[in-house]
């Protein structure tokens, strides 16, 4: 049975519970009802929403996470069941892994996955331009070669501790990303302005969409990490910092391109228009785009020789990290098909 993500992106909504359903009300009028057994997550992306404690209670029982995401896609808060952090063995291994070779291997796998997925997306973009835009096609393949060269540098990285090699890894990741975004800029429709990738304080459509999309993806990855019994804050590639969910940021790397970047490029190339007001994407456009990203998470890709929905693959990858940490079964990053 299909389960549903509830995205609340409208002012003045009250989220309440009636019998065993979540009820959305606006101005005392019921606008939507979803039974709890069908509910996957609640994502609140706007201000001026009220939520009843009964809903929170039921969500905790049903394992449904409630996330607050800002306009710009920044993840602000999450509410999840208290029992979710009861997986000691996995956590202990996760924290130990930082000091040994496992951390090194995982960090390399994340970066590898990210770059592989960038390559896949570029190839995918090139495929459709082979006929009608030879110049762009060649440009893309040029950059592909260069990214491949950069990628090879990873084979030489050796170390027994993640702190020794982090700088080298980040430098490779950064150089590849620079080339990658250079291509993306050329691929977007001409009328769309894209000054280059900006993470914070972006005030153009492309970056705003990217950031918002990553915000949605982030909440999904964080749920997956929690469900796998891992600690969100014990990452490898991303250094420790109080309040920084490094492991979520680590795992998100291999999904950014497939889930968000491709959706952004796709919707813009289809001619979908997004309005900005005061540097933020407008309410209506935001919901339209959120639907696209959620739709993308429902689409299927190959994983381990079988087809799974992307959201399922996300969960599987999180579990794989946990298995690797506990039992040493090799972690292979997810690479999408093209």
């Amino acid at each position: 049975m299909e389960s549903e993500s509830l995205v609340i992106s409208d002012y003045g909504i009250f989220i309440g519970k009636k019998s065993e359903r979540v009820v959305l009300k606006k101005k005392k009028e019921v606008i939507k009802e979803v039974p709890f057994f069908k509910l996957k997550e609640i994502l609140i992306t706007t201000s001026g929403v009220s939520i009843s404690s009964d809903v929170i209670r039921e969500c905790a029982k049903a394992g449904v996470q409630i996330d607050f995401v800002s306009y710009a896609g920044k993840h602000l808060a999450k509410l999840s069941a208290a029992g979710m952090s009861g997986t000691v063995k996995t956590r202990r291994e996760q924290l130990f892994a930082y000091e040994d070779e496992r951390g090194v291997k995982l960090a390399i796998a994340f970066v590898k996955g990210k770059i592989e997925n960038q390559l896949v997306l570029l190839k995918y973009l090139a495929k459709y331009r082979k006929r009608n835009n030879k110049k762009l096609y060649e440009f893309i393949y040029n950059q592909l070669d260069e990214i491949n060269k950069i990628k090879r540098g990873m084979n030489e990285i050796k170390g027994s501790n993640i702190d020794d090699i982090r700088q080298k890894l980040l430098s490779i990741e950064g150089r590849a990303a620079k080339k990658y975004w250079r291509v993306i800029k050329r691929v977007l429709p001409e009328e769309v302005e894209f000054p280059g990738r900006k993470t914070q304080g972006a005030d153009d459509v492309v970056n705003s969409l990217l950031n918002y999309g990553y915000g949605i993806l982030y909440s999904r990855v964080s749920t997956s990490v929690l469900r796998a019994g891992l600690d969100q804050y014990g990452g490898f590639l991303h250094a420790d910092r109080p309040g920084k969910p490094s492991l979520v940021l680590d795992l998100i790397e291999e999904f950014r391109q497939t889930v968000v970047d491709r959706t952004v490029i796709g919707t813009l190339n289809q001619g979908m228009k997004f309005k900005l007001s005061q540097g933020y994407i407008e309410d209506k456009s935001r919901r339209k785009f959120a639907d696209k990203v959620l739709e993308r998470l429902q689409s299927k890709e190959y994983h381990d020789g079988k087809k799974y929905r992307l959201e399922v693959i996300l969960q599987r990858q999180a579990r794989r990290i946990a298995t690797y940490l506990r039992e040493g079964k090799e972690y292979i990053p997810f690479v999408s098909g093209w």
Partner: protein
Amino acid sequence: MHTLLIYDISDDRIRNKVAETCKDYALRRIQWSAFLGKINHNKREELILKLGKLLGEKEGNIQLYPICSKDMKLHRELGRYANVRD
């Protein structure tokens, strides 16, 4: 599978509870005492158990019909009045 649930219950309190429970199982109201929706085998059994408990020893009648999608395609509807559904 599509499932049609109809009931005839005179006690207001129980009737309301039955209707609410139908909604909890993602069935939607198609007439005052008729609900329709897609529901899997397990959930359907769960629902009928719950309704049985609700009804208890009181007077009333609840019927549940699974409808296969082939037959569902033959569904027709005629309506002559303004919206009465919720």
